Structures are given as structure tokens and as C-alpha cells.
């Protein structure tokens, strides 16, 4: 019991607990009625499916969490995901480019978007909400202009059963997400840079008075956020086989919700990368399970909304008790 209490004390612990409770609940709720040994929810291929789809959100949520910890917000990841999928997909399908340069070009979408946002936030001094709202429109629009309504069927150029580096394609998204999550979690807690991100989010003026370069830190967080969104977009293009300008519509809010459910505070200075990934998994499990309950899909959005509020309220209660 005390060990469980201590686990809850760590913010990632309570997010993990919620994820496990959710899995146990749906495992029970969707238990097959009579003797058939096949469980529609608790089986290996469904687990892989959940991981695969959650990763698109999860990879971008790592960046969203870092931006939110720095006291900012990023509304552009949905648009960056779409544009990156268009660029990578278009170059592969119509451009005849080979794989590595196509991926690099897709990631470059993120770098350019991140630099644009940094310029707007730091040099033009726009509030991050406005800067990234504008960037969202610009980036999404660029996708429509490039495709002119076309859709790049990437799966055409990908051989079935392709195993890059010997790893099955479907395993790639979760693998990328987990590796990036571990890397950025360590960066946030082992590097001076990570401490500076927490400092800027906690008290920007004090950070300035301590000699931290606000411009450098903010540039880095928006650059990371947009680049991770581009990673999501490239993964989406390759694994799901499509490049389309209207992909990932509205994902930005789910991505922010993942970070918040994982412990990020929108007032800055608090949050966790691992928590954001667990948050994305919570929503992934929820969407997957609801899709298997007849009639529940209509309730999908509402349940997601209620879950965000309930988890954040629980977090507030835990924080208050801890203090």
C-alpha cells in the first residue's frame, strides 16, 4: 500500500495507474461472453494497433509537453503532421526520391515551421497562442497548395512485409515514440537545458535575471515541438501509407490534452515527457475500446472530454494533498 502511495506521489506513477485501471476495466467490460478464447480487446495484435495509432499523438505530445513546461503553447502540430506526410509522401510517390532524402525533407518541414514560430514568438513578440495559431493556418495551407487536392498513396511504393532494419513496419511507431520519450525525459532531467526550460516556465523574469537566454530556450522548445510533429507526420506517411493535406485535423488539441493529462500545467513550469506519452496512450486505449462497444462511437468525443477534466481534477487534489 505504501509502495502504491509512493507510486501515486510521482506524477508519472499516477498517470500509469490510470492507464492500467483503464486497461483492466475494458478488459473486463469487453470479456467475451461464451467460451470463445478470443478476447477482442486483450490480444497481441490489438495492443500493437493501439500502440501504433497512439504513437502519432505520443511523439508530438513529447514536444507539446516541453513547450507547455516552458510556459508556452503550440497549436501547430496537427498541421505540421499533415504537411510532413505530404512532403515525404509526395517525394516518394511523385518525385521519385529515395527513402532517406524523402524522410529528411519531411523532417525539414518541422525545422522550418519551428523556426517560423520561434521568429514570431521571440522577434515579433507575439503571444505563443497567436503565433502558433497563425503558423497552424500557414502550414496547413501549404499542404493544400502543394497537393491541390491530390492524395499520395505511399503504400504503392512500399513493398508489403517491408522490415526496415529488420523490424516489422508496424513496430516502428511505438519504437520511435519510446526511444524519443526516454531521450527527452533524460534531457529534461539531466541537462542544464532541461532545467532552464523548467526555469523559464516557472518564472520567466527570474530566469532572465539569472542569465538564462530566453530566446535560445524558447527557440529550442518550438523547434523540438515542430520537429517531433514532423516525425509523427513522416511515421504516419510510411506506416499508414498516406500523404494528405487534411490528415491529423484537430490533432493539436488531443496532443495538448495528452500532455496535460500527463501532468503538464498550462501555467508553465510543471510537467513530464513520459507523462505526456502515457497520456497519449490513455486516449489511444479509450478510442480503441470505445470503437468496439456497439453504439459507443457516438459518445467518443464526449467521453474523451470528461476524462481530461476528471484526470486533471484528480491531479489537483493529489498535488494539494502532497503540499
Amino acid at each position, binding site marked *: 500500500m505504501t509502495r502504491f502511495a509512493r507510486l501515486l506521489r510521482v506524477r508519472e506513477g499516477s498517470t500509469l495507474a490510470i492507464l492500467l485501471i483503464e486497461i483492466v476495466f475494458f478488459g473486463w467490460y469487453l470479456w467475451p461472453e461464451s467460451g470463445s478464447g478470443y478476447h477482442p480487446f486483450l490480444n497481441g495484435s490489438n495492443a500493437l494497433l493501439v500502440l501504433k495509432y497512439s504513437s502519432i499523438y505520443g511523439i508530438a505530445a513529447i514536444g507539446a509537453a516541453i513547450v507547455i513546461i516552458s510556459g508556452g503553447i503550440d497549436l501547430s502540430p496537427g498541421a505540421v503532421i499533415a504537411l510532413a506526410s505530404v512532403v515525404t509522401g509526395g517525394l516518394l510517390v511523385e518525385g521519385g526520391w529515395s527513402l532517406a532524402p524523402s524522410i529528411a525533407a519531411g523532417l525539414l518541414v518541422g525545422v522550418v515551421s519551428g523556426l517560423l514560430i520561434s521568429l514570431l514568438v521571440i522577434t515579433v513578440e507575439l503571444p505563443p497562442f497567436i503565433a502558433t495559431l497563425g503558423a497552424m493556418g500557414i502550414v496547413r495551407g501549404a499542404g493544400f497548395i502543394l497537393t491541390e487536392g491530390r492524395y499520395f498513396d505511399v503504400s504503392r511504393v512500399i513493398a508489403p512485409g517491408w522490415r526496415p532494419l529488420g523490424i516489422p513496419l508496424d513496430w516502428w511507431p511505438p519504437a520511435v515514440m519510446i526511444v524519443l520519450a526516454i531521450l527527452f525525459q533524460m534531457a529534461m532531467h539531466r541537462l542544464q537545458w532541461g532545467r532552464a526550460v*523548467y526555469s523559464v516556465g516557472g*518564472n520567466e523574469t527570474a530566469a*532572465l535575471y539569472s542569465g538564462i537566454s530566453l530566446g535560445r530556450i524558447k527557440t529550442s522548445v518550438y523547434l523540438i515541438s515542430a520537429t517531433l510533429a514532423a516525425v509523427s507526420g513522416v511515421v504516419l506517411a510510411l506506416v499508414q501509407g498516406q500523404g494528405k493535406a487534411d490528415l491529423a485535423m484537430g490533432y493539436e488539441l488531443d496532443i495538448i490534452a495528452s500532455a496535460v493529462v500527463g501532468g503538464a500545467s498550462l501555467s508553465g513550469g*510543471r510537467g513530464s515527457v513520459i507523462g505526456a506519452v502515457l497520456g497519449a496512450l490513455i486516449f489511444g486505449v479509450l478510442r480503441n475500446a470505445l470503437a468496439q462497444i456497439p453504439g459507443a462511437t457516438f459518445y467518443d468525443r464526449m467521453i474523451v472530454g470528461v476524462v481530461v477534466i476528471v484526470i486533471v481534477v484528480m491531479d489537483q487534489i493529489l498535488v494539494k494533498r502532497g503540499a
Partner: protein
Amino acid sequence: MPGLEFIDIHKSFGAVRALGGVSFTVRSGETHALMGENGAGKSTLLKILAGIVAPDRGEIRLDDRRLAHSSPRDALAHGIGMVYQEMVTFPNLTVTGNIFAGRELTGRGGVLLEREMRLRTRDLLARLHLSLAPDAHMGHLSAAHGQLVQVARALAFDCRVLVLDEPTTALTSAEADHLFRVLDDLRQRGVTILYVSHRLPEVFRLCDRMTVLRDGQYAGTFDHELRAASRELPAATDEPRAASRELPAATPEAIVRAMVGRDLPARPAFSGTAHTEAVLRVRGLTRAPVVDDVSLDVHRGEILGVFGLVGSGRSELLETIFGLHAADRGEVFVGETRLPAGSVLGATRAGVALVPEDRQRQALLFNLALRHNLVLPRATTGRSFLMRSVEERAFSNELVRHWHIKAPGIEATPDRLSGGNQQKVVLARWLGINPRVFLLDEPTKGVDVGAKDEIHEIVRRKAVDGAACLVVSSDLPEILALAHRILVMREGRVQGELLAGQADEESVMQLATAPVRRAS
């Protein structure tokens, strides 16, 4: 006539006892001071009085009726008006809007009676001798006017007890004088005033009696006889006068002893170390319009005091030296190194440290542990990318021990510390990287007497160790006690320089208020 009675008030937060049975009486019509160091329980007592927190035990009685209120709004309805230390106002509303916020006068159907409220505001402002338009925007007012608008708000609802929490921290002495005259005036009209302050001169200027709290306990009430004798309230002559004979007389020494629980050591005399090598040299530093052609030298082991009224450019001078703003003209040298303009990192790497004026806003990170706060300057000036937790803990623990910071541990967040200890954290973290030039802006603002002494001691020790210290303060006695040399500023210019031996309050004030000398 009983007035406001606190009877055996107890309050604990978790394991921390904030108040352990405090009882005292504020007589009706008197001006009563509530004093004590940070952490003595004053704020908790005020929060209970305002209805923000409920006491665990005990009660507050106003004119023999038990006060059962549970919110600041309730407190105001019972005739208790609070003026808070920090400005709790709406900068986006007008003065009228602020005075009537939450209790607007309304007519039929809930329509706001704008004209009526504006007229009453005009009246109130006149009573407070404030030349302000009722439609002025609160955000444009000075701190002093903001404070007085809070007083007006309390008066708008006919409060019988006016409570002021450290009202002069953000005021210049002229503004404070205005406030004192207003309070004298209110006292004449029979308003009971509870005045919370650290500052002895103010309390002696204003108050009839003084109650001191220490560590959540009542430490005594003192009678300020001179003040009480000059009272012009006819009602309070017979009975309380007899009772007041029982009380010890108020002297600064007695009150400090009650607050600190010991006698403070006498201020050590300055040895005035040999001024040889100028560590900090500022030449013609200009940043329009706040800093105008300032040149100065601070030598090894010297404490240079900079005095000036609000708006004289003192803080801006420090911030420009520190590189928070790029100068238009002029140069800053540390030793032989010329500092790059507008680079904090450049300044800190050359060994310049700045303890800013507002520790809550400009210095501390409340989302991170004390340990992270304490290593911040070392981390930013250092060139290592990695953080080493073990080393950080050792470094932080050493700072906490060496500078006697009272804290529940290095993993606690800074909000768990008293104001004085928070300030010591801000000093200690710069001292941890052994600065050659130590800039301090209002280093003892809002800290209690004991911590103030410790902070002065820290600055002196640092100077003895060979640092060049530059202390900005609006607390003239502090400058006189601490500095070897005093520069006086006005409108961004250096008005003159005095040696510690020659300077007194009068000569410094004269320079600070004299017309600006413009270079021909």
C-alpha cells in the same frame, strides 16, 4: 469600550503551528500596531480576521459581538476593511470600479448606478485628499495611489476597523507621509486602525499601542505614551488610561527585543579597508531616459551605497551594469575586462552578481526545489551541459548551512520559507559562485529586523573577503549603516558623493531632492 478582541486564537497548518493561543485587544478608536518578524504569525492572524482562513480554536469579537464570518466579503459587511500589502486591485477597471468591485450599487433590475457610484467615489477621494479622477484607470496609478484607493474602498462600506498590512513597502517617503496624514485624520474620526509593519519609525509615528507576536505567540503589548497623551479622543480618557499604566512603555529596544527574543548585537564599526584597486569601473554609462552619464568606481572590499528617490534610476543603473538592458553609451569594466553590452551571461561570467529588488518576481523559481534555485547562477555561468545531482545537493546543503538559511530541506520549494530566508537564498546562490562585484537592489526590502541584520552581516563579510559591493536602498538608515561611500542619484544622474563619516540623513536627502545639475 472593548473594540476588537482576539481571544485565544489557535491555528495550525498540518504539523506547523502558526498561532498558539494569541489574545489581545485593539481598543475602539485607537491606532494599534501589530509587529513581529516574518513567520511570527501576523499574516495568519490577518487572514483569520479577513475570513480567508478559519481558526482552529478561539474567537474574534468586535464590540462584544462574536464575529462569525467566512469570507473577505463577510468581513467587510461586519465593518472590517483590509488594505493588503500587495496590490489586490483590478488594473483593467477604473478607480470607481475598484472601489465598488463586487458590491456595486444597483437600481431596479440590477442596473448599475454609475453616476451614484462616481459621485460617492469623488467624495471618498476628497476625504483622502486624493486628486484623482473617479474614471482614472487603476493600472495607470502609482503604488501609493493604489494603496489609498484600497483605503477608500474600505471607507466606502463604512468600516469601523481598518487593517493595513505593510502599506508603505512600495511607497516613497513623501507618499508614505500622505498616507500617515490620512490615517491620522481617520483616527480623529474614530476609525479603529490595526497597522501591521516591520518599520519602527512608522509605528512610533502612528500608533498608540503596539502588540508584538513571536513564533505564533503573544509577546507583549507596549504603550506609546507620548502618542497616547496627545490623543484627542474624549471617550478614551478615564478607564483605558488607568489600564495603560500597566503596560510597559514602548521603546525601540524593548520592541526589537520582544520581536527577536534577544538583544541584537551592536552594529560593528567599519574598519574601512584600504581602497586600492578599483574592481568595478563604470564610465559614462547612459541609457535614455533612465540612466544619464553615470561614472563610478567601486574598490576591492568597498561597499558603495546608492541612494535616490523612486524614479531616480538607481535600479535601472544596476540592471544596465548587469547587462539586462543594453546601454546607449558608456562602458563597464570588471578588473581589466570590458563587459559586453546587454549580456547578462557576459556580466555573470565576469563575476558580477545582482540581487534584484523583487525576489518573488525576479529571482525565485517557485515551481522548483530550493536545491535547483540555489544552483541556478552556478549552472548558468558554468559551461557544463550535464547536471550532477550529487554535486548539486552537496553544494546546496553547504550554502544552506553556511548562510544559516532556515528551511525544511533543500527539496522544499521556496514558498515554504519566510521572506527573510527567501532573500538569503537569493544572496547565497550568488555568493556560491564568489562574485567579484556584488550588486544588491533593496536587499532587505520586506524582511524582518533579525534577517535584516544577518543580510547586512553577509554583505560586510563579502566586502571583507574582497568583493566590490554596490548597494541600492531607499532605506536611508540602512545606507548610512552599511556604506563606506554614498552616491546620491536623481533623474538618472549622480548628484553627488558623500563619505560615510560626513553623511547624515539630512545631507543625503538634500542631495537627493536638489535640482539636477546638467552638464554644460
